[in-house]
């Protein structure tokens, strides 16, 4: 049996572990290492445990909560990282592990990774959904622009806005647009503009820059503020080719500050032209309506003009009837005369009955007279009937009923607009005429 007390080459477990700890922790007090994250586990304490591996080996790793919070991206399984770590030995288990101070994504930049991660997360929350996009006012009364006034951005924006629509107020928030905390400042401005109802559209603008320069606009804090804003937000961040999270959450993305200016206000000249065109449209439609009416009136008037023709036709018809009547009477008389003659002959032939025939002739004569009278009366009645009809249509008949015809220099007056005060008018009555002077005119209201 080996004597442990005397043999210095024999270690106790704890002694060996301790020596290994000293050795390792001194030799690898700080080390740069890269590999792939797997078996990631975030404990309740907030510390993250994972295995860092490559094709052949793996090593237990940990990053404490405080260091983890400093990272601007999230650790994920499968992520290639490069980091600064120290080796620490956990004595109770005799195990060693890497304790990371800082980690960066390996291969792509951390800003890019952060962007991708935030975008994915917010997309999942529905922040970019079309249904949340608010409509911009037709003409805003005031526009708030959050930007740095030291750049050319504000000049470009203001130029375009005032050129298009001179009657609008622009409220400028001079903001830091890059560097730690800029996102929080901008978010707070958005919140305050909403609370104080200072504008009816907000423009978020920044000139171009690297992805790191624009990184504040990829912040989740800012995205929240944009999403929660009741006032529509137009984003104009970076160059036309740059896309930030803010652009995705905003209600409209403008490629440049000038485009933002064009989006937020309409061109006043255009509105005026629109109004003018509606106006002329209105006039031409109205003109059309009136024209139609005028044609209708003309049509009715022409029907009135044809009235005499109708009475003419009455006259002709009357003449015709009269002629037919008289000729029928003439025929009847001729017939009767003829009969009379034949009777006479017959009477001469049969003389003895002469007396009897005389009676008969007398009888027939009176009959004949009666018939003629009856016929003539009938014709007379018809004639008076038609005459009264004709008279009713005759202007003198109208005058007889109390209407008067007013003339000015032989022109018949129908509208009060055709005369003016002082004019001498000729008024035709049923009997006689009047010469009158106009003292006042009254327009009849419809």
């Amino acid at each position: 049996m080996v004597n442990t007390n005397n043999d210095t080459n024999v270690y106790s477990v704890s002694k060996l572990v301790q020596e290994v700890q000293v050795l390792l922790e001194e030799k690898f007090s700080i080390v740069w290492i890269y590999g792939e994250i797997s078996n990631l586990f975030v404990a309740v304490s907030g510390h993250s445990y994972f295995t860092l591996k490559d094709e052949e080996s793996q090593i237990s790793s940990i990053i404490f909560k405080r260091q983890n919070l400093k990272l601007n991206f999230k650790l994920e399984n499968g992520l290639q990282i490069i980091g600064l770590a120290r080796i620490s030995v956990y004595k109770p288990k005799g195990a060693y592990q890497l304790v990371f101070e800082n980690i960066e994504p390996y291969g792509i930049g951390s800003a890019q990774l952060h962007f991708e991660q935030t975008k994915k997360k917010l997309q999942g929350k529905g922040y970019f959904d079309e249904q949340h996009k608010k409509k911009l006012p037709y003409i805003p009364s005031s526009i708030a622009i959050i930007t740095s006034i030291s750049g050319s951005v504000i000049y470009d924006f203001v130029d375009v806005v005032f050129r298009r629509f001179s009657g609008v107020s622009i409220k400028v928030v001079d903001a830091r647009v890059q560097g730690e905390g800029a996102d929080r400042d901008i978010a707070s401005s958005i919140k305050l503009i909403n609370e104080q109802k200072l504008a009816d559209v907000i423009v978020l603008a920044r000139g171009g820059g690297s992805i790191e320069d624009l990184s504040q606009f990829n912040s989740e804090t800012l995205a929240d503020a944009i999403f929660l804003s009741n006032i529509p937000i137009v984003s104009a961040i970076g160059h036309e080719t740059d896309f930030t999270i803010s652009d995705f959450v905003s209600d409209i993305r403008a490629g440049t500050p000038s485009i933002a200016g064009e989006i937020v206000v309409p061109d006043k000249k255009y509105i005026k032209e629109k109004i003018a065109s509606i106006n002329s449209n209105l006039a031409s439609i109205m003109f059309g309506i009136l024209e139609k009416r005028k044609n209708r009136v003309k049509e009715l008037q022409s029907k009135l003009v044809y009235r005499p023709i109708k009475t003419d036709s009455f006259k002709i018809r009357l003449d015709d009837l009269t002629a037919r009547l008289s000729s029928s009477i003439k025929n009847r008389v001729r017939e009767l005369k003829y009969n009379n003659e034949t009777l006479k002959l017959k009477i001469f032939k049969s003389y003895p009955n002469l007396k009897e025939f005389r009676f008969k002739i007398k009888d027939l004569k009176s009959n004949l007279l009666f018939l003629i009278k009856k016929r003539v009366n009938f014709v007379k009645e018809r004639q008076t009937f038609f005459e009264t009809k004709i008279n009713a249509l005759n202007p003198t008949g109208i005058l007889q009923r109390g209407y008067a015809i007013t003339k000015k220099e032989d022109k018949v007056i129908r509208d009060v607009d055709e005369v003016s005060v002082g004019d001498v008018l000729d008024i035709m009555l049923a009997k006689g005429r009047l010469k009158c002077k106009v003292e006042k005119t009254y327009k009849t209201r419809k």
Partner: protein
Amino acid sequence: MKVKAGGFSKKMATKNIEELIKNLEKIVEMLEENKLPVEEAMKKFEEGVEISKECTSLLDSMEKKMTLLLQKNDKLEEKEFDLPKK
């Protein structure tokens, strides 16, 4: 609806222009349908002309303005402001 530009705040004015233009378009539509009696059509026409006059005068009555919003004790305060000449 009679609107006098002077008596309204700017906010009302801008809101009104949008509405007035909408009204104007409605009137045009009504007249185009040509179902109104002439007297009413005439009234609508006159109303339309009036509205378009109002729009134009409202547009011209609005003045441009620029201010700076400065944060003080959790509030934004408005200050007169002009961009420095470049």
